């Protein structure tokens, strides 16, 4: 039986298929029509609700897309929806939005309200671009966003001492483990590894799910319900983010939000890549493992991890094994994971101070878009500026995330100069085989890949591991070359 706290009261969802989304259940079963469907794929934010998760400093509200959230994923958690904000007085987020005329047709508005609701209780939205980052998962076709931004500015981080902040400390997810079989579907959330392995032994055909930001689309867009799902969300050790002896160990079920916070001061390259990963709602649910295990050629984490020489840690009942990440991606959407094996973590060595390292993401729209081309670029040099290590990894230009080994080989041992970078860029075609699709033509992708390598040289002339300048338009920042 799925049980969770909805707007302050514990509710039970019985007799529903485990692949029912929270959005459909709220609207169809509970008649809570404030929460809207605009796309059913995580791209518009009209369905946004807040879920309480355990953050670094305690429980926090997190805005998530209820259209991608399967009901079992909120088991044991606290959920707040727009219909649950109803009081004598408007919530400050609602008040600010109404006063700024942040709604015209009003259809995006309940979702915007819930994103602002999270913002109200977040202490870290201290720059205008961070507000955009918070809001970019909520599309509005009417207002042009200026008034929505204004409302966000007013409420972000105000943390009023209201009942919602008072309720937070006691709202941490309790026991979220679950075993459920309904309508011919099975959903399990094991709390221990033994329970996980047992479940896999009994149901070797079960599929893993964590955030569901990839898998749920099969249900909401293709209307295909996977018969057996195993959620890895409740296995705390898989979620840990730690640094030991200069190696970042990134738990596979850590969310992109958590990765973003963790890498802010530890890895400019990773941090830069995740800045433009999906939107707030997606970052709150999407995970490192989910991103890598789809082995999608346009997954954003692979190129930057590849460029940093990352290792995948794979775990099964019997063993834990380590695979260099470039061997993890076997073929189009195929990984080295064996049966009944999970991705446990990614290990990323911190680059030496002499290394140059940047990650780039180029997309049609800056925010909330899939990469047309992405790149993780890494070069280390010795005292006489000769290249000792080069790793040029790209996404969107081959069937898998891929390293451009010909270009890498060509620069090792050479002085790291603009000419070397330019010459290497001309060799990218040896390894990269871009295709044309609606995101970009093959020619465009090839040209961008070449330009990024040259831009990488220019940008790292002075600062070798440059962080993303806030609010900057171009992927490649003006940097050293003026």
């Amino acid at each position: 039986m799925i049980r969770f706290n909805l707007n302050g009261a514990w509710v039970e969802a019985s007799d529903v298929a485990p692949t029912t989304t929270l959005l459909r259940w709220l609207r169809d079963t509970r008649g809570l029509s404030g929460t809207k469907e605009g796309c059913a794929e995580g791209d518009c934010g009209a369905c946004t609700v807040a879920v309480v998760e355990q953050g670094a400093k305690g429980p926090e509200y997190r805005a998530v897309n209820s259209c991608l959230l399967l009901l079992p994923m909120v088991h044991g958690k606290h959920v707040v929806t727009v219909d649950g904000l109803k009081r004598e007085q408007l919530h400050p987020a609602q008040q600010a939005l109404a006063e700024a005329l942040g709604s015209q047709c009003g259809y995006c508005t309940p979702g915007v309200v819930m994103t602002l609701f999270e913002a109200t209780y977040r202490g870290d939205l201290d720059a205008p671009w961070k507000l955009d980052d918070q809001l970019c998962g909520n599309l509005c076709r009417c207002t042009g966003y200026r008034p929505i931004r204004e409302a966000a500015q007013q409420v972000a981080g105000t943390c009023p001492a209201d009942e919602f902040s008072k309720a937070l400390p006691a709202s941490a997810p309790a026991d979220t483990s679950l075993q459920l079989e309904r309508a011919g579907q099975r959903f399990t959330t094991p709390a221990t590894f033994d329970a996980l392995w047992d479940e896999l032994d009994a149901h070797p055909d079960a599929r893993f799910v964590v955030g569901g930001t990839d898998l749920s689309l099969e249900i909401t867009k293709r209307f295909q319900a996977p018969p057996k799902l195993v959620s890895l969300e409740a296995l705390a050790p898989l979620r840990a983010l730690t640094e030991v002896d200069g190696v970042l160990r990134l738990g596979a079920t850590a969310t992109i939000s958590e990765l973003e916070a963790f890498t802010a001061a530890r890895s400019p390259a990773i941090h830069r890549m995740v800045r433009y990963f999906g939107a707030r709602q997606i970052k709150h649910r999407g995970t490192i493992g989910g991103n890598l295990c789809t082995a999608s050629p346009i997954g954003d984490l692979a190129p930057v991890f590849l460029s940093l020489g990352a290792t995948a840690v794979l775990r099964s009942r019997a063993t834990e094994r380590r695979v260099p990440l470039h061997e993890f991606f076997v073929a189009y959407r195929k990984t080295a994971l064996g049966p009944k094996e999970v991705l446990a973590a990614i290990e990323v060595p911190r680059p030496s101070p002499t290394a140059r390292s940047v990650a780039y993401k180029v997309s049609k729209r800056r925010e909330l878009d899939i990469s047309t081309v992405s790149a993780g670029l890494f070069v280390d040099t010795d005292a006489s500026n000769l290249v000792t290590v080069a790793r040029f990894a790209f996404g969107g230009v081959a069937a898998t995330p891929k390293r451009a080994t010909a270009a890498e080989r060509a620069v090792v041992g050479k002085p790291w100069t603009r000419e070397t970078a330019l010459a290497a860029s001309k060799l990218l075609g040896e390894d990269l085989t871009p295709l044309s699709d609606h995101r970009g033509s093959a020619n465009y992708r090839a040209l961008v890949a070449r330009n990024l390598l040259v831009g990488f040289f220019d940008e790292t002339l002075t600062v070798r591991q440059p962080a993303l300048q806030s609010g900057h338009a171009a992927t490649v920042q003006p940097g050293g070359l003026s």
Partner: protein
Amino acid sequence: MSTLHQPQLHESGKLHVTGEARYVDDLAVPALVAQVVPAPVAHGRIRRLDVTRARAVPGVVAVFTHRDVPGENQVGPVIHDEELFAFDTVRFLGQSVALVVAESYAAARAGVKAVELEVDPLPAITTLDEALAKGSFLTDPHTMQRGDVEAAFVGAPLVLQGQVRTGGQDHFYLETQCSLALPEEGGTVRVISSTQHPSEVQTILSHVLGVGRSSIVVEVPRMGGGFGGKETQAAPYAAMAALAAVKLRKAVKVWLNRDQDMMWTGKRHPFLSNWRAAFDAQGRILALDAKLYADGGFSSDLSRAICDRALYHADNAYFVPAIRVTGQVAKTNLPSNTAFRGFGGPQGMALVEEVMSRAAERLGLDPATVRAQNFYGDAPRNVTQYHQTVTENRIGRIWSELLESSRYAQRRAELEAFNAGSAHHKWGLAITPVKFGISFTTSFLNQAGALVVVYADGTAQVNHGGTEMGQGLHTKIRAIAAHELGLDVSDVRVMTTATDKVPNTSATAASSGSDLNGQAVKAACETVRERLVPIAQKLLGAEAVSFAGGFATGGGKAVPMREVTQAAYLAQVSMSATGYYRTPGINYDRATAKGKPFHYFAYGAAVAEVELSGLTGEHRVRRVDILHDAGRSLSPSIDVGQVEGGFIQGVGWLTCEEVRFDGKGFLATHSPDTYKIPACGDTPTEFHVKLLENAAQEGVIHGSKAVGEPPLMLALSVVAALRHAVSAFGPAKTEVELAMPCTPEALLFAVEHAKSKG
């Protein structure tokens, strides 16, 4: 105290933010649901259509095809060339063939799968170019001209020619198409629909059902966005819901999910225009000769009027001494393209703005100067290509005020300095004008009605023909009614739009919502007010009385309006009235291509500054300054919202939004995953929008001006600025080759082209 001309909150704002605002799909009415059976190919002959198996699927209640239509199987709004259900041929991928009605969406989808539909494919036309090559058209060419074009080209110092393409645009209203039909007694039906045109939905339903319009009531509570996409295209789905409801005697809802909505409904017309233009050496335009082709899709819909409006706006704010513009709508096997904010105007303006940019680039002049010297002026430089005289021209005033307030000249100098020192990134800065004609160009549509009801307790309900889709029409109407009746706005309620309250209405479109309906409401309120005056005179014992802010005053006394209305009730005075308005003096004769199609023009200008990466083609709009003419605004806060929202929507059309069909007529960009409307970060952080001051317009409701569409075209300033940035990658006088939408890819290739000139 009247709220007219004062900043106001949106009338439904509080309902929006609490989630209480109800849209059609939110109504708590148990209803059967439905799924459309779509045509699997862009063009083909139906060989077999058998729904027997589908009817047997558990949960399926009924399956309807063209055979079940009691009246006409037609939903074409102007020309009857669009079937409700295809019956012998299918003409675009996604055309409705049948409707499966079921107890759940899962059952309905299973029912769709069980329909046996066999279609023999026929050759399909899936691009505008292909249609032109094959001579496939929906309309005959229509030409507007003035002056001797051929003569003007002879010996002209500068002759330019080119081709301009603008892309399609999905409306991407956040609320997709939805209609709920509730059967009522005796074969009548009530349909609650998300439509901008309830009267037309009612008319089409009456044809489909074969009953009089009096048997049908169409209601529109509010829309989650329309933008033109629900002007004609709500009707087919409303008709399906009504048909099923009447047949089954049960409530039926037809709702399209996002992918279905994007795949099956029409979009902004893509245009392709071939042009040549003559200029003198100083950049004064001498002649423009252009052929504009629109991709209409498979049926007529509103395409002819849209193509006409492109011709009406091929001059924008410029006087072209000799001009000839011809428009024609091509027929393709794609969804039927339809109204979209601007209604062809943007496509016409995009053409002439490109012409101006090209001339400035070729001559090495500041495009702002080239543009300004070509503005309409005094006679004889004040006659358009359709022979309407441009009066009350405000573009000059707007232009100089905006150049000043945006520091255009200084910033252009700063920009040159930045560009000189930056290899990979260049800035661009540009100013462009907008002159947009206000009125339906089909003259008889310029009419509106209202029904105002005042209760004895001094509260009022206002019914009018306009629909609320977020544009703030109801907010303005409420202010007008409160002002006329002297009531407090909180005592005035604007009602759900319904065809049984106000009949024979026009679409809420052409930016005309408040112009037309505002006048009708004003007229109705005046009637009621005149009846209340004698009552108030008696109550106050004064000859001169006035009503404002909930009080009647006169003779040094004031009484609450509710005492006046109560007294009126007791005195047996009618307190409801209808109002009606028609726009005077507008006409257009298609045969001679002359007339005065527009009641007046709305003006505006925008300065945009962009930054462009020469490595990736990505850009950012750094700053935008807009000065827009909304007349004496009925509600400045609402109008600023229209300007900002329209502008950003235009930026989307011109930059990131790319509608892409594959070669088979399948829409590749059928969801927000691949179709990108602007997101929050695409709005410039420096976004200065001002309404022109002291700008009351004669002959329009309370001196205001229509504001729904014109600001969208201000976004052409971003294209002009991007061209400027691209040219900075090349040598002086680089002529830019930049396709629209200006995606990163289009921009990067334009940069490469510019660099190759160096």
